[in-house]
């Protein structure tokens, strides 16, 4: 259980035991608690006082399936709030195997200085000058780094966007195949990494220093039961392996809540061409892999390997949110173009969601036409080239809207909404407005309540409570390193029971069902506290005006949640 602190101002690093005040924390619980404790809330996110904290979950590195998520936290240059963004691939498990609880990057390198941070098999850190890699896109550099340091490494890497310190810059993470196609996408953490002077972090995957499990026998038995629950749940056992998250295109359009053409319609004309069904069929026909293993110890296999008409690899994994942002919001109904845009974003190192929405805003403003695939590809490529427009697009939809004097900009606190229109899913309106992270879907997606028929998505009733409960649940899950998708079985008695037993066996404690939400509330309180000190008030917990004034076809609803009700969502 160690911390590695790296100071980029004097290029020193130090390994220590985890300080007492942070014991028992992991993932988002650790990053948010530390950011709130150690980062001045009014600091410049791209300055020396911000910290970039990389933390696996408390279960990462154990033998439990689907626990290889890594949380990355900082003050966000996009939103100005606290931010946690998590990524899949191999990094979470890798850090767990090294017994590393967090890597904390502090200070700032000098102008023009660029480094690789290397963590070896003993968990020792070193900084290696990397100026020769300046400007390199992530795929080429990841390949090079794995050649130099060996294939058995996890890589966290920024592309040109992070080096330009653009507010939508991502930190890409390598998957099981060594491709930088997983992402800590949201919130501009790639810009923070770039501002510190780090181009990539290369971490040895062969650590043998996993934290001890308190009761190994009980852990093994409970882990087996949890894996069973995953296999038996229809979502994780059947749908996700078959269609991936792209399987959401059909239900969300069928509900009239798929924000299309810059959120002017809830159904996209031609959505069937870019659905999960269409994607799986196309990939299979071309000899790609529609049920690809992307992350360590995953038994869901929601990932895919998209190939072109000649069977050549294009991108992995093409997800629902990217299909929405690059297809729904832009009117591009061609999977090849969308796949290419996904690859471009991963290569340049930007959040596909913020960028797709930015392109949608640009189209709505008339810069290019909706549906212009070649035009969209050119715009996104400009981010990598560092043109003036490219930098604006890389800074997010607010920047695009300001440049083009356009008023319909679907963001909250600078971060774009996700693939669920708040007018068509009123609970997601609450999450977008009130999440400490800005408009966010993984923070608290209420979709499940609508799909099960428990709640009416078009009425205000019950939405605040549903959003609150799911935000609390997700904050807890985000501490563990467990993949969001593998958290669905937690709602069944078998899955929920097995998970509690896993946690208790790991730590030698006796958590009950109420302790999990308590963990989530603790995390949210830290985040809300930071944001308040950073200057945010309830006035910032509102959606853009057009969501309240422009009815969304086909249901023609606006956001129905009152300001007072929004303010009650996260009152603890």
């Amino acid at each position, binding site marked *: 259980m160690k911390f590695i602190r790296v100071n980029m101002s004097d290029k020193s690093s130090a390994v220590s035991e985890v300080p007492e005040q942070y014991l028992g924390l992991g993932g988002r619980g650790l990053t948010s608690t530390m950011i709130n404790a150690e980062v001045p809330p009014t600091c410049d996110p791209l300055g020396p006082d911000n910290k970039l904290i990389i933390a696996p979950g408390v279960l990462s590195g154990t033998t439990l399936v689907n626990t290889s998520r890594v949380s990355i936290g900082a003050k966000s240059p996009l939103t100005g709030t606290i931010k946690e963004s998590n990524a899949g691939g191999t990094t979470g498990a890798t850090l767990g195997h090294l017994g590393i609880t967090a890597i904390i990057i502090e200070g700032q390198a000098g102008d023009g200085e660029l480094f690789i941070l290397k963590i070896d098999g003993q968990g020792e850190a070193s900084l290696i000058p990397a100026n020769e890699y300046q400007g390199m896109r992530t795929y080429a550099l990841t390949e090079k780094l794995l050649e130099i340091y060996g294939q058995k490494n996890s890589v966290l890497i920024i592309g040109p966007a992070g080096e330009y310190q653009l507010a939508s810059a991502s930190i890409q993470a390598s998957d099981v195949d060594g491709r930088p196609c997983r992402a800590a996408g949201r919130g501009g953490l790639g810009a923070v990494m770039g501002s510190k002077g780090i181009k990539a972090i290369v971490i040895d995957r062969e650590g043998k220093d996993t934290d001890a499990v308190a009761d190994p026998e009980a852990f093994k038995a409970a882990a087996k039961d949890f894996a069973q629950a995953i296999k038996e749940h*229809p*979502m994780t056992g059947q749908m996700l392996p078959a269609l991936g998250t792209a399987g959401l295109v*059909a239900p969300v359009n*069928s509900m009239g809540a798929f924000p299309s053409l810059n959120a002017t319609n809830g159904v996209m004309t031609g959505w*069937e061409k870019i659905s999960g069904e269409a994607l799986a069929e196309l990939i299979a026909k071309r000899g790609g892999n529609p049920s690809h293993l992307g992350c360590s110890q995953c038994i869901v296999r929601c990932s895919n390997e998209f190939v072109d008409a000649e069977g050549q690899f294009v991108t992995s994994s093409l997800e*629902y949110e990217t299909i929405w942002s690059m297809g729904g919001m832009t009117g591009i109904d061609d999977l090849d173009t969308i796949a290419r845009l996904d690859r471009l974003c991963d290569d340049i190192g930007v959040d596909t969601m913020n960028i797709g929405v930015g392109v949608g805003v640009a189209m709505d403003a008339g810069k290019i036409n909706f549906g212009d695939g070649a035009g969209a590809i050119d715009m996104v490529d400009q981010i990598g080239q560092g043109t003036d427009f490219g930098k604006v697009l890389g800074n997010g939809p607010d920047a695009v809207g300001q440049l083009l004097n356009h008023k319909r900009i679907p963001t909250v606190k600078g971060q774009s909404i996700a693939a669920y229109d708040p007018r068509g899913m009123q609970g997601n309106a609450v999450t977008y407005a009130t999440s400490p992270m800005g408009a966010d879907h993984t923070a608290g997606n209420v979709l499940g309540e609508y*799909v099960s*028929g428990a709640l*009416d998505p078009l009425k205000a009733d019950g939405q605040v409570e549903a959003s609150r409960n799911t935000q609390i649940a997700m904050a807890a899950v985000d501490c563990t390193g467990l993949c969001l998708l593998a958290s669905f079985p937690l709602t069944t008695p078998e899955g929920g029971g097995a998970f509690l037993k896993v946690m208790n066996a790991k730590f030698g404690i006796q958590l009950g069902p109420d302790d999990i939400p308590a963990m989530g509330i603790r995390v949210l309180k830290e985040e809300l506290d930071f944001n308040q000190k950073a200057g945010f008030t309830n006035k910032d917990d509102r959606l853009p005006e057009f969501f309240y004034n422009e009815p969304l076809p086909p249901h023609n609803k606006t956001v129905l949640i009152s300001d007072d009700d929004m303010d009650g969502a996260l009152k603890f």
Partner: protein
Amino acid sequence: MKVRVKLFGPLPQTIPGYNSRNGLEINIPDGVTINDLFARLEIQEPEGYMVAMNNMVIKPTDIIKKGSVLSILPRIAGG
């Protein structure tokens, strides 16, 4: 009365000759509910599916309207 039914997930494979572009056009009596439709289409485990009628999520006991487009989808949520 005629309605159009679109199927998703594993369902298309259960209907020989199902065309995903057009879906299934079927003739049903007035007053038929979603539950009745599941039985008619021989859908196993209907609780595993969500139904949208003209872009609204509806309950299994709801009555189907004339000329509707119905989508039968596996219950799925994600990110």
